[in-house]
C-alpha cells in the first residue's frame, strides 16, 4: 500500500523556487495496475522518483505499508529500494560492460544472495522474459526491446511487491512496446503492484486506473472502459 499525502516538490533554480509537484494525494493498493499520463514536464518522473525513494518530497508525507518513510535512514531506504521496489526506465539503464545476466544479478548482489543461487535466479528471470539465450550478451549487443526485457528481469530480481516503470515503451516501436506491455500485464496478473508512466494511450488503457497529471497536479482520474 502506497500513500502520498499532500506531497510537493520544488527546485530552486537560481534564486527562484520552481514548484514541480503541487500537493499530490495518491493511494495505490497492493496488486493494482496504475497508469500515469500527462504532458512533458508535468512532473511524472519526479513523482516516480519520490515513490521509488530516490528523491525526497519538499513537503507532505509518504507512507509505505502504513509507515512513513520520510525519516528513514539512508541504509533503510536502500534496503527498501532493493527488496520492495523494482525500477524500469525509458532508457533501460543497464550497466554497460556487464552482461545481461550480471545486470540481473546486481540487486541480488546488494541483497547478499550467494553466487550460485543468484545465477540460477537470474537465469530463471531471463528465461521468463525470453532472454535466456542472450544471457551473456553485453547491453550494447542487444536491441532496445531486448534491453528492456533484461531491465525488467533485473527489476524483478529480489521479487519486489512494487514495479515502477517510467515510459518503459517510450524508446520502442509499436510491436516491441506491445511485447513489453504484455510482460507488465503478466506481472500484474501475478499479483504485483505496477505503476506505469506513459505517453502511449494503448499502454495506459492496460491500467485499472489512469491518473492524468498536468503541471504538477493530478487533475483527473480515469477508469478505462474496457480493462484489457
Amino acid at each position, binding site marked *: 500500500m502506497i500513500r502520498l499525502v499532500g506531497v510537493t516538490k520544488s527546485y530552486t533554480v537560481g534564486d527562484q523556487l520552481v514548484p514541480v509537484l503541487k500537493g499530490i494525494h495518491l493511494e495505490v493498493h497492493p496488486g493494482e495496475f496504475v497508469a500515469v499520463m500527462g504532458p512533458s514536464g508535468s512532473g511524472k518522473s519526479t513523482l516516480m522518483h519520490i515513490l521509488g525513494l*530516490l528523491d525526497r518530497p519538499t513537503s507532505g508525507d509518504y507512507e509505505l505499508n502504513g509507515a512513513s518513510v520520510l525519516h528513514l535512514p539512508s*541504509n533503510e531506504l536502500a534496503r527498501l529500494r532493493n527488496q520492495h521496489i523494482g525500477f524500469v526506465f525509458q532508457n533501460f*539503464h543497464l550497466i554497460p560492460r556487464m552482461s545481461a545476466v550480471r545486470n540481473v544479478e546486481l540487486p541480488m548482489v*546488494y541483497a547478499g544472495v550467494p553466487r550460485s543461487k543468484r545465477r540460477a535466479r537470474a537465469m530463471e528471470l531471463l528465461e521468463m522474459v525470453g532472454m535466456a539465450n542472450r544471457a551473456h550478451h553485453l547491453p550494447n549487443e542487444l536491441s532496445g526491446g531486448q534491453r528492456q526485457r533484461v531491465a525488467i528481469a533485473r527489476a524483478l530480481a529480489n521479487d519486489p511487491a512494487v514495479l515502477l516503470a517510467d515510459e518503459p515503451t517510450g524508446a520502442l516501436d509499436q510491436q516491441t512496446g506491445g511485447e513489453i506491455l504484455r510482460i507488465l500485464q503478466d506481472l500484474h496478473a501475478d499479483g504485483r503492484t505496477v505503476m506505469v508512466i506513459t505517453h502511449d494511450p494503448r499502454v495506459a488503457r492496460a491500467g485499472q486506473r489512469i491518473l492524468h497529471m498536468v503541471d504538477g497536479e493530478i487533475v483527473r482520474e480515469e477508469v478505462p472502459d474496457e480493462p484489457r
Partner: protein
Amino acid sequence: MNLDEMLRMALASLAANKTRAFLTMLGIWIGVASILAIVAIGNGGKALVIGEISGGNQSNVIQIVPRELVAPGLPQPGQVLSIDDSDLAITASFSGVESVNETFYGTAVVQSGDKSDNVTLFAGPADLDRLARFVVVRGHMFTAEDVLSHGNVAVISQSLANKLFGSGNPLGAIITLSGVPLEVIGVAQPEQASLYSLVMGSDNLYIPDTTCEDIFPNWTASEMDVVVQPGVDVQSLANRIVLALNIHAGDPTAFIDSSGLAASVAALVGKVTTILTAVIGAVAGIALLVGGVGVMNIMLVSVTERTQEIGIRVSLGARKRDIVLQFLVESMVITSMGGVAGIATGVVVSAALRALTGIPAFVPWTVGALAFVFSAAIGVVCGLYPAAKAANLHPVDALRYE
C-alpha cells in the same frame, strides 16, 4: 555485499579499461620499485662498507699499528715508524699467539722501460696474500725461500700490470723499484672488489719483506699482524698486547689495535649510509606520492564517467557504503598491484645489482611487506575522496547525468 564480490567487480571494471589501469598502476609501481631499489642499494652498500672495514681483520688476526699510521694518508718511505724487533719479541711472548707477522706498506714508484707508475707497496712474509687479502691469478706468489733469500721478485696487481705492460705478458718481465730490478712472478687481484681497494688505489706491488728491507733500509714495519691460536679470546689478548707494547714504548697511546678502530669507523659509516639511504628514499617517496595523486585523479575521472552507473546501482539498492567500497576497492586494487609489481621489480633490480656489481644489495622482507601495506594504504587514502564523492551523489541527478 562481501569482499569477494567487490574484488570481482573492481577487477572487471579495471579490465574494461586496461591501458588506463596499467598507466595508473605504473605510477605506484615506479615509486615502490625505486624506494625498494634504494633501500636495497643502501643496505647492500652498508653491508659492503662495514664488511670491508671491519672484515679486513680475520677474526683470529689482531692488527696492531703505530699511532702515526692512524693519521690520514699513507706513510712515506723513511717516515719514522715504531715497530721494531723488541716489539715483535714482546708480542710473540704472549701465550695464545700463534705467529707474529710484520707487513710494510707505503707509496713507491716503479718503472718498466719508459713507463713508471706510483704504486702502493706491500711487503711481508710468504703469506702476505692472506694478510693483505689478494689472490694471485697468474704466475705464483713468492715463497718462503724467496723471503729467506731476499729474492728480487714481485707480484703486481692486475691494474698495475695493465698500466705497465698493456695486453703483453707481464710474467718474467723486469721492473725496477728505487733502481733495484725485480722479476714479476705473479699477477694478483684483490680478494673481492672492494671499497678498500678503491680508496687505497689498485696499483699494488707485493714483495718479500726481506727484499723491502734491503731496498728501503730505513723502513720499519707498518703493521703487526698477530695470528691468534684457536680458542683464545682475541679481544682480551689484543688489549693485553697493546698495553704491554705501550708500557714498553713509554707512551700509553703508542700502539693501537686497529681492529677496534675499524669497528668504530664501520659504525660511523653505517650511520652515514643509513642517513643517506633515508634521504634518497624520501626523494623516491615523492615519486610514490605523485603516483598516488595520479590514482586519485583517475578515480575522480572514473566517478564522473560512471555517474549514471552509480545512479543505477543506487536505484537497485546499493547503500552508500557499497558505493564507497566499490571505488575504494578499485583504487586499492590498482595501488596494491602497483605495489606488488614494484616490490618484484625492486627485488629483481637488487638481484641484478648483486650479480653485476658485487654490492650485496638486498630487500629485507620487512621492507617488502611494509611497501605492500603502504601501497594498499595509498589506495585507501587516494580513493577515499573520489569514493565519498560518488556515494554522496544525488541518485536522481546521477540517473539523469548524461
